[in-house]
């Protein structure tokens, strides 16, 4: 019986890929386990093995095709003497790759639908009329590091798989070729050790960028981040600043379970001596990372795996930075202030679009940095709208939203027409099951409901 082979999902967040190369042709006999194609994801080029045996009846997607969605039939395998034309309809298709393929898009769907097209009304970060180019967050991060490394010979990158592997998430792709192994340092899997070494190197006059494959693993190194990097300038009476950037994926990706899905934004934001950055857009990722590398203090730079592949307009300038402590107003509005940061912005902007249809005008603010926080922009907005909803994926207790709610209560109490509602991830370890994971994260529907509640609608 003919079997359709489907485009596989080769990473937790993959939605589509490029069919780089077929290693079989029509009429070839294929054995189970045989490598039949090379598929390029946003992270890497992967070999794709056949699960079933058979004869290649028809190749449905030509090699070199880009943007092939996960689960698209790419080839038909037939039995001897069988015609490919007799292949069953795609409904009966056998999933050739890991079952992730079926479930992975559940979370990604909401993300993919996010209104990337929304353009910040007023962007004070670069001059009006600046030429723009489209690039992914991933490319923006890579450009930021490469530009700063070209400008300052003491900037170096270290971490697991940053060099020869080209980065676990391809953020550092190509950097080893350009800068060599002295400046792009592959470390053993030893977070506490290499973080301590990086902090010492910063004291010794270098400007290290430490890549944590994800911030979950930085827990192994938390002592050096807090006790060694963050506190020493103070403890030394200002003698020993620590110019270092700790960056990597933070928060939930998709279907990777509780130990790989935590948002640490509020944790790090609690520590004096650290700067904490959590960009949403590619332009912010680039401008803020360049700023972070130049900052004389330890900077926690929280990225998001799901955002890595998202495209945004970025100013086409030889050099630009975005200062810390300056929020960005993505959308002006008059009825409610929605404050978010990082991937939370996807829910905030999506909710604002939905609310607009109900004639609720939401002002959407991206904090961009969580230490320092741009209180002034938030307070000015709340004084105008008299209502506020905060959005983040982190845990509810001691959240950034809690902190903003208390700040607004203390500094703008008389302006409030409703209590501030904080939309956060749920107070549970991240479950694996697709449906549970979706509900453990903050949802656009919750943001919409919260806004309607504070607007008494």
């Amino acid at each position, binding site marked *: 019986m003919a079997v359709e082979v489907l485009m596989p999902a080769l990473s937790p967040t993959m939605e589509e890929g490029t069919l780089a190369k077929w290693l079989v042709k029509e009429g070839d006999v294929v054995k189970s386990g045989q490598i039949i194609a090379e598929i390029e994801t946003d992270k890497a080029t992967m070999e794709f093995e056949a699960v079933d045996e058979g004869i290649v009846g028809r190749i449905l997607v030509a090699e070199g095709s880009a943007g092939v969605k996960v689960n698209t039939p790419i080839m038909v395998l037939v039995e001897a003497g069988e015609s490919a034309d007799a292949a069953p309809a795609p409904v009966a298709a056998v999933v050739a790759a890991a079952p992730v393929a079926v479930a992975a898009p559940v979370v990604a769907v909401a993300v993919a639908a996010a209104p990337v097209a929304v353009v910040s009304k007023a962007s004070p970060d670069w001059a009006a009329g600046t030429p723009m180019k489209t690039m992914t967050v991933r490319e923006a991060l890579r450009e930021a590091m490469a530009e700063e490394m070209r400008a300052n010979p*003491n900037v*170096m990158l270290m971490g697991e798989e940053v060099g020869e592997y080209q980065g676990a998430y391809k953020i550092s792709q190509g950097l080893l070729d350009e800068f060599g192994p*002295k400046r792009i*340092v592959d*470390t*053993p899997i*030893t977070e*506490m*050790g*290499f*973080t*301590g*070494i*990086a*902090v*010492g*190197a*910063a*004291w*010794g*006059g*270098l400007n290290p960028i430490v890549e944590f494959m994800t911030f979950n693993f930085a827990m192994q190194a938390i*002592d*050096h981040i807090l*006790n*060694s990097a963050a506190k*020493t*300038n*103070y*403890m*030394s*009476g*200002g*003698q*020993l*600043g*620590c*110019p270092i950037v700790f960056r990597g994926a933070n928060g939930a990706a998709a279907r990777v379970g509780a130990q790989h899905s935590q948002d640490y934004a509020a944790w790090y934001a609690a520590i*004096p*001596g650290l*700067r904490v950055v959590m960009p949403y857009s590619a332009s912010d990722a680039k401008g803020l990372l360049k700023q972070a590398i130049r900052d*004389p*203090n330890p900077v926690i730079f929280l990225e998001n795996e799901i955002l890595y592949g998202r495209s945004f307009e970025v100013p086409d300038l030889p050099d630009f930075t975005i200062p810390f402590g300056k929020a960005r107003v993505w959308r002006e509005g008059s009825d409610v202030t929605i404050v978010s940061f990082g991937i939370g912005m996807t829910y905030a902007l999506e909710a604002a679009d939905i609310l607009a249809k109900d004639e609720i005008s939401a002002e959407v603010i991206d904090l961009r940095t969580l230490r320092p926080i741009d209180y002034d922009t938030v307070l000015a907005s709340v004084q105008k709208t008299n209502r506020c909803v905060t959005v983040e994926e982190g845990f509810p207790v001691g959240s950034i939203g809690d902190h903003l709610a208390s700040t607004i209560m203390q500094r703008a109490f008389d302006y409030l027409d409703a209590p501030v509602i904080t939309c956060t991830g749920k107070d549970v370890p991240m479950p694996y099951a697709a449906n549970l994971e979706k509900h453990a994260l903050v949802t656009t529907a919750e943001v919409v409901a919260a806004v309607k509640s504070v607007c008494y609608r």
Partner: protein
Amino acid sequence: MAAKKAPEKSNVSKEELIKFYREMLLIRRFEEKAGQLYGMGLIGGFCHLYIGQEAVVVGLEACTKEGDKRITSYRDHGHMLACGMEANGVMAELTGRSGGYSKGKGGSMHMFSREKHFYGGHGIVGAQVPLGAGLALADKYKGNDNVTFAYFGDGAANQGQVYETYNMAELWALPVIFVIENNHYAMGTSQARSTKSETLFGRGLAYGIAGEQVDGMDVLAVKEAGQKAVAHCRAGKGPYILEMMTYRYRGHSMSDPAKYRTREEVEKMKSEKDAIEHVRDLLLNAGLSSEDELKAIDKSIKDVVNASAEFAKESPEPALSELWTDIYA
């Protein structure tokens, strides 16, 4: 103590012996004074005295050149004095005054001097080991021949990050000397109660790091071993481990009654192995110095220490505005 002795006929000069005597005595008198000020309530919190271990830092500092770096744990007063930091600034930090090296904001365990390449003073046991390797990485990156001395105790030697650091230091041939100050007690836990390893330097062999055990109560043996280690590092051969067999006379901190060892054990070390008495004997027995000459040194040291105590009492407390400074560079 099964460690290497200094050569019987050392070609050490009188000047050098006097220098060792002076530097070790400064540390001892300084620490005694600190203990006294602690008892008077002028020094607060934790205060870990270096008395008994003086030969380790004094012998190793004799192997350094400008640009070399050092980093240690919270038992750090001796290291600071040995690398040339001022007694006044150290003592005023102990009393939490504005004249201290950290303007009173660091305290006994957290002092630093960029000028003297002293990178602390770290309160988390073992943290200074990768930090020290990082200082060495910066020097190697810049292409100079500086070395870093990363000091830690037998207690810290059981921290996992020490071995993560060993692995990378050897892998990347970092110019760092790991100095294990083995005073036999991690707070109240003897080495025998915390490990089956017979030696601590021996653990480095698993990572390919050369090392040796040294009589840390003999400043000449310390210097000789230090020179060998420094030559190894400066030649680009990577890290080296020196396990200094030493002894602290006082408790772990000022609040430690030291019930985990006998009075006899302490007295035996003091009477048979004391580092300062050793140098004093060398000077007197060889006829290099007179009692009067050494007395004059004792007095000059006492003057320096007394002056530092006065400075530390007189120096004003930090202004309240200092609460909000130095959080960011």
